[in-house]
Each structure stands twice: as C-alpha cells, then as structure tokens.
C-alpha cells in the first residue's frame, strides 16, 4: 500500500487543482478587511487539519507498538510524528505571515498561536527524548508512551483553551461559530477548493512519511 502510486498521483492532482483554481475561484466580498487574503484558507488551515491527521496516525502506531513491540510500528509512529510536526511548524509560519498583514504583527500572543507553539514544543521534546536514548527497545517504548501524552496535549492547547477566552482567531469567546468542523460557514465556492486542499496536503504528508518509513526499514535490513 505504501508503495502504490495511485494515491500519490491523486494527491498531486488535488494540489494542482488547489494551487491553480484556488487563486481564481470567486471569494465572497464582505467588509473588505480580509479581501483576497482569505485564499490562505486553502493553505494555512489545511496545514493544521493535515497535522491532526498525521499525528493521529502517529499515536495510533505508538499504541500499536506498545501492544506488538514490533519495530515496524515504531518506525511508522516516528515518521508520521516527524511529518506532523513539520506541518505544525509550517502552519505556525504561514499563520505568522498572514497575521502580519491581517492583525498587524506576526505574533500577537493570541491564545491559539500560543497553544500551537506549546503543542509544537511538546512534540519537539518527543524527538529530543528519542535522540537521548541509545537502546532501541527502551527508546521505542518510552517514546511511544510520550507520543500518547503529546497527542492528548493537542486538545487543550489547540482546541479547548483558545475557545474559552477572547481570541483573534475565529471561534474565540465573543465571536460566533465553531471554526474547525463546520467549514467555518464557508461559501460553497470556497468549500469546493478547501476540502480537496485538506485531502491533498494530507496525502502529501502521508507520502513523505511513507518514504521515511521505507528508508528506515531498508536500513534495518
């Protein structure tokens, strides 16, 4: 499955569609504070959606490893965590670029920005933890346990706390709606690019993770 080509080509086709039509599709004209920068929805937001999916796969394999003790599961867990963390940092950077023009400065101490930074630091600590141990078996087991903790920390930092207080991001106290799952009351035109974008960027992340896994498996032989 990880060597098959069809879903990789599909990922490219989706991102080709997003990176072309995403700039042409009509976006709603509201009060002109966002203007066309809302097109960032097709790039910045999918980074976070993809990150959640990739890190979920990572913790799934971490839990699986604790049951099976098979090194393959540990390779999967590590690879998906690495790509997920990369996407998280891309989300932070693209968010800072967007915020610079939309909110006046790249870092506003917004609850979601802070939460995301904390979540990323927790995952960075996962890699430091892995690097600090030399015994393969011990490293994999302790890393798997930490992975589970790190994944569950995503929820208070990214989803719960930013909604309990006032926030510049949509969804904070004082603004309406659930920003994540309902497509942010997105216009139908935008939704037609947004969902393919999430799928496309996620599949690209999966592809990169599978390459890392195959490389580690080859090295082991």
């Amino acid at each position: 499955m990880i060597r098959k080509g069809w879903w990789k080509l599909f990922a490219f086709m989706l991102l080709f569609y997003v990176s072309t039509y995403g700039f042409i599709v009509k976006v709603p004209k509201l009060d002109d504070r966002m203007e066309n920068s809302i097109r960032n929805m097709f790039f910045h937001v999918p980074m976070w959606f993809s990150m959640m999916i990739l890190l979920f796969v990572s913790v799934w394999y971490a839990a699986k490893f604790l049951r099976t003790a098979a090194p393959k599961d540990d390779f999967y867990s590590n690879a998906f965590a690495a790509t997920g963390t990369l996407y998280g940092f891309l989300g932070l950077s693209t968010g800072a670029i967007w915020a610079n023009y939309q909110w006046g400065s790249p870092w506003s101490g917004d609850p979601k920005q802070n939460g995301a930074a904390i979540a990323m630091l927790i995952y960075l600590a996962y890699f430091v933890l892995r690097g600090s141990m030399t015994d393969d078996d011990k490293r994999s087991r302790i890393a798997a346990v930490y992975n589970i903790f790190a994944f569950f920390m995503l929820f208070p930092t990214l989803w719960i706390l930013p909604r309990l207080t006032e926030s510049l991001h949509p969804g904070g106290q004082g603004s309406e709606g659930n920003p994540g799952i309902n497509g942010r009351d997105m216009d139908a035109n935008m939704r037609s690019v947004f969902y393919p974008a999430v799928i496309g960027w996620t599949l690209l992340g999966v592809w990169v993770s599978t390459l890392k896994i195959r490389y580690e498996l080859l090295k082991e032989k």
Partner: protein
Amino acid sequence: MVVLLFVFVCCITVNAQTQVAAANSDIMRSNGKIYVVMAVVFTIVTGLFLYVFSIDKKISKLENK
C-alpha cells in the same frame, strides 16, 4: 496598463467606500498579477512533487535489488 490607471484613479478620487472597495478587492485580478501568484505556487507544488517522486523512485530501486 489602462485598467491599472483606472483602478488608481478610483482609489485617489473621493468615492463612496464601496466603490473603492470594489476596485481594491479585484486589483490583482484586474492587472493580471494574480496569475503570477498562481504560477509561483503551482511551480513550488510541482517542484515539491518532482523531488518527492525522485526519492520514491530511488527507494523503490533499493528495495527491489
């Protein structure tokens, strides 16, 4: 070029907010520069995919040895 000049004139003269707003939100499309952004992003995406694909091929070759 004429369209660009027209858009600037719209911005400079004292107008109702909506008229200026209409000019502003379509500025990139009216002067065709949105297609430059589109081409840049598409080039980056394609380049990324070509790179990942080449690594995929190298690994497949090593696996099949």
